[in-house]
């Protein structure tokens, strides 16, 4: 992971957000991923979403595991603390970190190898615990850094760059996430910023476990004709449920979708994810239907994208464990130590 710092000079006329910051202020180091990598598009979508939401970078913790995707946090939000942990273990680092201080925004970046294979246990339990974080899988169906092995999200009929058949069916992470209790589940495509940026904004604003499966083609190892995760394949088979628009809290809804065809998802912080309905079956509050939609589109050889499921009222881990509102990492000896008198009582109870 080379580390090339970008020059700090900004054009004076660059657009500024509510904090007076430009998009450049949300960037990171220069990417060392392959030119055209879907992951870089996701990084720039994250920059865009954070810029538009006027997020304070230093209140974000970027966490990752190992792999191409897990390098990505170096390429956005320079002023955020980052934690590039070990392979497949980002969720546990995020869980501990979020318990220590629930006031930061936790953004986890993982890949299909990291989350669907070595780290699937941690992914499962993190979703099940409703950790308040945004969990992104940059899904390219392949192991890039080790040069092109199949990952567990690779489709059965897909072939490797070298012509080998993938012998095993793919694991569908969004279906799993819904079943496990994730309260915000979406799928998107790295090449579709129109859809991706609003979904990211909604995921970052959602309280609870937000899961985003982002198909992100690997230009070097999995972008050939017989791949089902290539740019061309996804563009042809993308079956969008809705066209999303994100409305921050207190802002007027400006979308001009025809009445009757929109679905609004009000989020915990008062913001709104407004969705133009494309599919007839679409109801983001219906867990069972969401899983059914995913399965059906898979059967039909399509890749279903958009907001798949959301429950804005779900409790998060901090609430479930009834943890104090004062962040645990701000507590000092006076808050935490029961003192000598209590210890005397304990001693007498042990006689």
């Amino acid at each position, binding site marked *: *992971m*080379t*580390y090339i710092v970008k020059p700090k000079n900004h054009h004076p006329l660059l657009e500024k957000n509510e904090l007076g910051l430009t998009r450049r202020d949300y960037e990171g180091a220069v990417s060392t991923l392959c030119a055209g990598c879907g992951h870089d598009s996701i990084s720039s979508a994250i920059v865009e979403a954070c810029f538009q939401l006027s997020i*304070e*970078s*230093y*209140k974000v*913790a970027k*966490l990752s595991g190992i792999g191409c995707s897990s390098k990505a946090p*170096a390429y956005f939000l*320079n*002023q*955020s*603390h*980052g*934690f*590039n*942990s*070990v392979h497949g*273990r980002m*969720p*546990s*680092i*995020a*869980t*501990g*970190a*979020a*318990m*220590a*201080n629930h*006031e*930061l925004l936790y953004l986890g970046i993982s890949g299909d190898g990291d989350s669907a294979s070595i780290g699937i*246990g*941690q992914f*499962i*339990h993190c979703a099940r*615990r409703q950790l308040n974080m945004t969990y992104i899988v940059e899904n390219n169906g392949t192991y890039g850094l080790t040069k092109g092995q199949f990952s567990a999200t690779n489709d059965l009929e897909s072939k490797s760059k070298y012509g080998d058949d993938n012998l095993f069916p793919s694991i569908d992470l969004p279906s799993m996430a819904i079943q496990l209790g994730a309260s915000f589940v979406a799928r998107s495509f790295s090449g579709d910023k129109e859809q991706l940026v609003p979904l990211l904004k909604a995921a970052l604003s959602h309280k609870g476990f937000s899961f985003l499966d982002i198909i992100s083609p690997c230009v070097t190892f999995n972008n050939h004709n017989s791949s089902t995760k290539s740019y061309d394949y996804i563009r042809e088979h993308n079956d969008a449920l809705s066209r999303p628009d994100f409305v921050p809290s207190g802002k007027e809804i400006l979308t001009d979708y025809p009445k009757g065809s929109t679905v609004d998802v009000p989020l915990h912080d008062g913001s709104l994810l407004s969705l133009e309905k494309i599919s007839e079956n679409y109801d983001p509050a219906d867990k069972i239907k969401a899983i059914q939609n995913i399965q059906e589109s898979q059967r039909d050889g399509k890749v279903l994208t958009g907001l798949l499921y959301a429950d804005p009222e779900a409790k998060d881990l901090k609430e479930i*464990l*009834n*943890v*104090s*509102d004062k962040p*645990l*990492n701000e*507590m*000092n*000896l006076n*808050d*935490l*130590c*029961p*003192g*000598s008198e*209590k*210890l005397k009582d*304990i*001693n007498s109870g*042990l*006689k």
Partner: protein
Amino acid sequence: MKIKSVNDFVIKFANVNGSGSASANQMFAKGVFRSGIPVSPKNIFPSNIQGLPTWFEVRVNENGYLGRREGIDLFVAMNPQSYQKDVEELKEGGYLIYDSSWKRDFGREDINILEIPLTKLCVQEFTNPKQRLLFKNLGYVGLLASILEMDKEIYISLIEEQFKGKEKLIEPNVKALNIGYNYAEENFKDYCDIKVNKSNKTDGLILTSGNDAAGLGCVYGGATVCAWYPITPSTSLAESYSKYSEKMRVEIGTEKNKFAFIQAEDELAAMGMTIGANWNGARAFTATSGPGVSLMSEFIGLAYFAEVPTVLFNVQRGGPSTGMPTRTQQSDILCSAYASHGDTKHILLIPSDPKECFDFAVEAFDLADRLQTPVIVLLDLDLGMNDWSTKEFEWDDNNQYDRGKVLSKEDLDGIEKFGRYLDVDGDGIPYRTYPGTHPEKGAYFTRGTSHDEYAGYTEDGVKNAEMLTRLVKKFQTASSLVPSPVFNQEKSTSSMGIIYFGSTDCSMQEALDVLDQQNLNIDAMRIRAFPFNLEVWEFIEDHDLLFIVEQNRDGQMRTLIMAEGGIIPDKLVSILCFDGQPITAEHITNKINAHISGKPALVAS
């Protein structure tokens, strides 16, 4: 012949696992403790929920010798499955108590047998089938109180305390106690020559386990996050933290918890959560045993290299592999000291009794924060799960937590360029920042990949070697901060020395007294931490021959001493015990005597 003794004996109970015997046996031990005589109850249990044989051994000793001792004076045999083996353990002149509802011939003329038809008596007195079974246990406690001439009222108060809030249960429990007590008063008056006489040798002592003490120490030490995965024998440590936190760490008014207690999906996640929380400025710990340490090793290496404070309690059990999950050993010394791939070394704290478990738990968090590295507290099953007569816990209200080198927003304002891994003070310890501290300064990338002083990724081998070398310097700094050894003499006077550590302490004190009586003058030192500090090396330097007493097969502490200090192997003689039972004083003295007389026993235990 009858064994005659006052306040000095070993009693063993044989029961069926899951029959409720452990709490009755525990109550017997506590009754002796309340009579003012130190006790060391040891639960010898199977890895099973119900049905297999289980034993409970209590050494009663007014002199405070509380290590395990071979040879049983009194045997309460309640499990026909194990009668034969149990009766063999009884010393000549010892006493056997068994349930004579079904009479038995034990084929030993040299022991004294006390028959009590417990099952028949309980069937007569109770109608509930569960009670008929359960109350046999209290029945024999009552019998023991009578034959040992103990104060029955002590047991009645123990029952009352146990069932506080469930008063209905007091009456039948006292009745069960009386069944045994009255039967013995009628049938065995003045029969037994072993007695418990009231004393005051437990003044200033409490009866508790190392796990309970360590969990409490974590509360006092300011731990707010405990992430763990159940594994014997460490489970009760995490549960102790949770129990004390629920009592003493709930916000008044909001009723919210000033702690997070998370049962993880496995040991890997438990360690990940611990590291994540510490990284973010909370004091966090996990507790596990051997197999868990193996699973956590990758993460331990990350915490070492990325310099994240981490506290891990390793309650050692019999290894290797799944090994003997319910038996004790000190066989994770090396895998803890050098856990993880690559060049790694970790701080070890090795307490020897529950009081020290409490103290070292508190200290572990200070050391981890100060040194920004994993600190592993090594207990073992005997120390962790058994109750020990130990000194009362102490806390000085002037104590402060040492959070180490953490930069605040104001600190960062005064710094031109923050370097996460810069050795500013020359002690090998850099400065760190918590996420969310400063809008423009102090952010860095924590990583397990090679990095430079500014936390940037680097593939520059020279830079990486510099970082690894600084970590050695930090470890040297650690050697002056960790607890120093305890010496049994003010000044070394012998050419021979003994090195020991951890739960061996109680047997060692007895062994040293025996050696002294044999006019063998040997110095002794108890190691309490790794890295070894100067005093440890001086002691080794000052002696020509050193016995290293360990409860493992390979002499792991000896290996560590040789590896870290370049000590000549010939000078270091292993005294080993690894049969899963706590080491005895007799074992230690026999092995030392054999070596000195030129007949070293090669095979231990």
